[in-house]
């Protein structure tokens, strides 16, 4: 397996995630795009672990850690989204401008 293939797939997934974060205005869709970017990084970690044949398996172990952190992140993120929805009745990102410069 040439390392180019997983690396290119991961790069494409990452840039799709970047597009999603920048272009979507629903907060849950932005969270989904962040998950896409995390998955691109995971694919890179696994591919380079297989390529370099690390004795400590650091790539795959770090992939597991990233998956766990992503689960925690999505849990906290959705709790924050629900709290915002309760107080503001909207989760559209461009309507939450209270902290922005006028």
């Amino acid at each position, binding site marked *: *397996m*040439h*390392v*180019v*293939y*997983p*690396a*290119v*797939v991961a*790069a*494409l*997934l*990452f*840039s*799709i995630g*970047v*597009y999603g974060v*920048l*272009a979507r205005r*629903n907060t*849950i*869709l932005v*969270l*989904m795009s962040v*998950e*896409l970017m995390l*998955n691109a990084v*995971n*694919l890179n970690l*696994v*591919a380079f*672990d*297989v*390529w370099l044949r690390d004795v*400590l*398996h650091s790539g*795959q*172990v770090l992939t*597991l*850690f990233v*998956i*766990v*952190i*992503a*689960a*925690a*992140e*999505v*849990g*906290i993120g*959705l*709790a924050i*989204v*629900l*709290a915002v*929805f*309760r107080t503001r009745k909207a989760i*559209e*990102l*461009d309507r939450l401008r209270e902290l922005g410069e006028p």
Partner: protein
Amino acid sequence: MSAVDFWPPSTLEIVFLLLGLVAVGSALLVVTTRQLVHAALWLVLCFGALAGCYLVLTAEFVAWVQVLIYVGAVVVLLLFGIMLTRAPIGRSDDLDSGNRVVAAVVALATAGVLVSVVVGGFQHAYADLRPGSGSAEELGGSIFRNWVLPFEALSVLLLAALIGAIVLSRTDISGRR
């Protein structure tokens, strides 16, 4: 040595490329679809195809963890979030913000830079796949021999995230008076 020695792909690489194509295509649908629930369901397909990619790369344990946590837990959480925020279930045309064009330009620039750098940097790198190197036995031994401290720190982090999520989402908890 030829200029591109990763073309034509072998059978294994064709399987990987097909799975990667499914992943990239469904990811594109996640960020472009006009229905919120469909985005979550395309995300399932994307994560499933990525689990197949991990299987081809001989990382079997990571593949099953991906299926369990991402397809099983994260997508269900996202669907719960969609339902609890009373999102429109049908078609809705206001899911994209006004800066779609700028976002597309930035994403295309990112893709161009990353793909050209990666192809230029790794076009001769070849990973010899050896089945069994990513099995649960190998990874478990590695985690509990060499990665014990990060593993424990991560369990504390998960506990903190759990308590934080409960505190944030309950309305009957108030601060100290």
